[in-house]
């Protein structure tokens, strides 16, 4: 494929990160999910897991398994880096057909939308205009992280972009839908958190004993609908 810009750096011994840039963009995130799929399909000896993020993929490996199976003078990091580079060069540049968006109902009632007024004031618009702008877009799940099942989605309309709270809440209620910068996310569990809460969903995003413990995965598309 056409040359892809990337950087590979160690995350301590036993892990490395492949960084495709420093942006929240679908182009970079496509490379991340593409590489994650390729590595999952061609698991090498010592592969433990990979963790997709916005524009980077982290690979966790067992240093001893790697060194036992690839007997060279190279370090474990160098061995895994070359294995990863082979997969990067094979990446398919053709964008995948977009998935069907998953609908998530959200209530914007005052008791649920703890920071809706604050965010609307900051954007100098009414709360209903904010809700309208928020519902207008389809969001991509760029990654899961922070707490089990928490989706980092984006990008929200620039006009409603709001910075994180200066001091985080001790307990953000389960199901809270928040915004921070150009991102939006949902708290699958009650947890401390600093995002501005504009609504709440009843949808279960984390069911520990289900076959698929999280409702969403990286790469999914989401549309919020008024509950």
């Amino acid at each position, binding site marked *: 494929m056409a040359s892809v810009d990337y950087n590979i*750096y*160690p*995350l*301590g*011994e*036993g*892990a490395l*990160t492949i*960084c495709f840039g*420093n*942006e*929240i963009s679908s182009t970079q995130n496509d490379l991340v999910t593409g590489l*994650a799929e390729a590595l999952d399909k061609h698991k090498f000896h010592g592969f*433990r*897991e*990979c*963790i*997709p*993020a*916005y*524009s*980077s993929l*982290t690979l*966790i490996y067992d*240093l*001893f398994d790697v*060194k036992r199976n690839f007997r060279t003078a190279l*370090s*474990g*990091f160098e061995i895994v880096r070359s294995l990863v580079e082979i997969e990067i060069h094979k990446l398919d540049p053709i964008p995948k057909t977009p998935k069907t968006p998953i609908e998530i109902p959200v209530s914007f009632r005052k008791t649920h939308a703890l920071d809706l007024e604050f965010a609307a004031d900051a954007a100098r618009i009414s709360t209903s205009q904010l809700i309208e702008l928020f519902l207008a877009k389809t969001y991509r799940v760029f*990654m*899961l*992280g*922070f*707490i*089990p*099942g*928490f989706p*980092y989605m984006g990008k929200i309309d620039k006009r409603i972009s709001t910075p994180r709270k200066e001091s985080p809440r001790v307990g953000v209620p389960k199901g809270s839908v928040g915004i921070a910068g150009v991102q939006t996310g949902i708290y699958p*569990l009650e*947890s401390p958190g600093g995002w501005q809460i504009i609504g709440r969903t009843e949808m279960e995003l*984390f069911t*520990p*004993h289900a076959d698929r*413990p*999280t409702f969403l*995965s*990286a790469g999914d598309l989401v549309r919020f609908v008024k509950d």
Partner: protein
Amino acid sequence: MGLVIKKAGILDSFQDLGRYGYQRLGINPGGAMDRTALRIINLLLGNPEGEAGLEMHFPAAELTFSEDLVFALGGAEFDATINGETIENWRVYPAKKGDKLKFKRQRFGTRSYLSVAGGFEIDAWLGSLSTNLIAGVGGFQGRSLKNGDQIAIRKPAKALHARIGVRLARSFRLRYSQSSAIRITKGADYEKLTALSEQLFSRELFRITGDSNRMGFRLDGKPLHLLNRDVEISSAVNFGTMQILPNGQIVILMADHQTTGGYPKIAHIIKADLPTAAQLGAGDEIGFRIVSLDEAETISSEFERDLSFLRMGVRFNTTAG
């Protein structure tokens, strides 16, 4: 039954070597803070190395054994006693039904481990017995222990008495230390440190603050500065990753770290030194020494080789003495 908790400690939770494979779902690996201590006592007991043990902080749990069993302690030294009689770490002991295990004082370290021959009968979740305190699953009902909790044990595969008295040779004991520098490798953002901050980082000591726990250690020391703090977007982090907060202070991510983080990553503690770090607690001082990634890999390999000698020694039961 196996154990009854008479008086819960401040944070007693079951942990194994961590739950890997699910970080892409935001599920953090968790696991024992001092994985080496847990591996060693399991080896002494004839358990698989990754069997779950009870991780205790001080004050630790007071408990009663409700059946005859065989156990070992390792990690921090909390002056353990059985029915008032002192027992030592890194040694296999028998316990009779009704025996009481207590910990009198915190002599050294922060986290002590109790493992039993055969292992505890607790909840597995996604391939691990570790308690995930955030999600409330795994281990014993997904939580830290409370007064009155009763924990069953599994029947050990081998005859119980076979391992009694097995103890770790002195040469194998972990070289924990409260003062030595923790070895680290450079992180992706290390080069962003100013020249002065780079010097401070390697020369200064930093104090672990009171709000340090299984998730991470916050350090207090001379603030470190970065040449630039451009866009910080989240990427995966690791056990031992060291980040710089906006106020210039360091935070070290420990066993219950989140899967991803956005703060600049300046360094990573090498695996062989994580147990030393894990035994530090609030008020302790910590310093850092940079090693190359190649050195870190070599140290890690030597460390695993030592453990495999121990594993063989235990198999032939030659470690006693």
